[in-house]
């Protein structure tokens, strides 16, 4: 058995009274080396302090733990490194991450935390709860992931398939659309884009009397040219 393996249960059992929400829960408490866990929390410093306190035992086992503050202290990475490579990362957020392709109200951060639900996890020691987004917020977060990343990571379309597969999504039984529309808007146009040219209503009718009277001749000419072009194309295949 690889000794350089973190037991994520040991981190979250003592944190049962903390206010947090694990955003992307894949195969918890299992993880693959190099993966991370995204956590929204109100008190990012205290949460990081808890992670360091609970994780320091791994330093004796050969891990190195590093912590980096980003974005004026609004995001903290806590990395557990093994032989210089990241074994696992806790990615803590004190506010919403920045998105380029979608605009989200900042208050959505609190909404996710306040509407979190608990999920029971069984470990060797005990059964305990972790906190994850509600079903609606899980769908919104997947949607945002898709919009933000699908052009670079085509696999993100899986999020859309997941959303569409939820029972009741199409009939409004899950208030996904309502909450999405409340918190999300289209991104602003960058300043260097040219304004979209709006077609003006023509001042004169497109077909005027002169055109109308000439239509039979013009129409004949158009049809003749199209027919000639079509026959030419067909002849190349015969």
């Amino acid at each position, binding site marked *: 058995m690889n000794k350089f393996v973190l037991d994520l249960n040991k981190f979250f059992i003592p944190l049962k009274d903390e206010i947090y929400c694990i955003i992307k829960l894949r195969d918890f408490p299992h993880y693959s080396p190099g993966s991370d866990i995204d956590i929204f929390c109100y008190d990012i410093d205290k949460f990081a302090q808890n992670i*360091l306190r609970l994780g320091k035992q791994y330093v004796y086992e050969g891990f*190195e733990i590093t912590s980096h503050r980003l974005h004026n202290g609004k995001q903290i990475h806590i990395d557990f490194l093994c032989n210089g490579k990241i074994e696992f990362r806790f990615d803590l957020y004190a506010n919403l991450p920045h998105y380029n392709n979608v605009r989200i109200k900042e208050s959505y951060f609190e909404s996710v935390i306040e509407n979190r639900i608990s999920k029971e996890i069984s470990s060797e020691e005990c059964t305990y709860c972790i906190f994850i987004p509600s079903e609606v917020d899980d769908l919104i977060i997947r949607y945002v992931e898709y919009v933000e990343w699908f052009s670079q990571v085509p696999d993100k379309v899986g999020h859309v398939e997941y959303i569409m597969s939820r029972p009741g999504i199409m009939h409004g039984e899950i208030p996904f659309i309502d909450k999405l529309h409340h918190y999300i808007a289209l991104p602003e146009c960058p300043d260097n884009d040219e304004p979209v040219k709006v077609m003006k209503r023509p001042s004169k009718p497109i077909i005027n009397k002169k055109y109308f009277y000439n239509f039979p001749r013009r129409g004949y000419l158009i049809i003749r040219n199209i027919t000639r072009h079509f026959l030419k194309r067909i002849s190349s295949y015969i």
Partner: protein
Amino acid sequence: MINNYFLERMRYDYFLIWGHGLEYRDAIFDLIREDNRLSIIMILYHRPHSITDLVDAIYSYDYAPYEHLLDKTNYLLNTPSEVIFIFVKNHYPQVDLFGNGSFRHVESLTIKTLKETIRNRYNPRYNGKRTEDHIIHASDSEKQTHHILKYLGYEKGILLFKEYDRMLNTPYYMPICNHISLLNVRVDTLLCNTARGDRYNYKIQTIPLKESPQYKGLSVNIKIYEEYINRFIGGPLTEDYSMKRFLDLAEKLDYLGLTYEDKYIITTPASPSAHLIIDGLHRASVLAFKKVENIIIAEIGN
């Protein structure tokens, strides 16, 4: 008379021992330490250019009328031109209104009672009675503490104490750390800074941990440590150091255990194989004295 008794959040205050009270310094420190509503966070010796300027600075934010202050502070002009500032964290201010008429003002009852206790014990006496030639002054409000810090050259004022790294619980003199690594290192790779000279004229020298006065105080003679503290407290050493506290630490330290859970020894890289202690020299000395070979440190960088 006490009216409108109400509680306030934790705040920062200061005591000032005037020149004629310096001989009672250690006793006053002990009285403040015994009051569990207060924690000493910074001690500063100060030699003002003129005692008049200092008195003006101290009392410029005072509540009392100017004429009263002139009488009150006349005696100070004949005291030695050396004072000690003791900045404290006031966990339980008990702010209330005191005095009458033009002397009515807001003050912390916690600070007031301790100040009166110290004055009753150590103010000069005349015919067996306590005089009003006070040996100690204290702040009435956090605003006064902020003002005095700026007067002493700390541009941030009260923010000096309020801005600290909450993840590592660093002391006030350390900035917020953007990069931290928890490492398991050998104790003999630890270096520390030590002062040479005297309180007002000193140089800082980097030496191995086991050559520090702290380690030698435990391994050779505690008087080495005591003499070092007495020489430099209030100068390069601004925290609340005392022999008794150090010996208590040596007896009870459970590094990163229950009472020291998040109190890492904080270092910066001195070389690829050495670590300079920024905070935690006393704890490191105790661990080295106890023959601990490896310890976890928090190494910081920006």
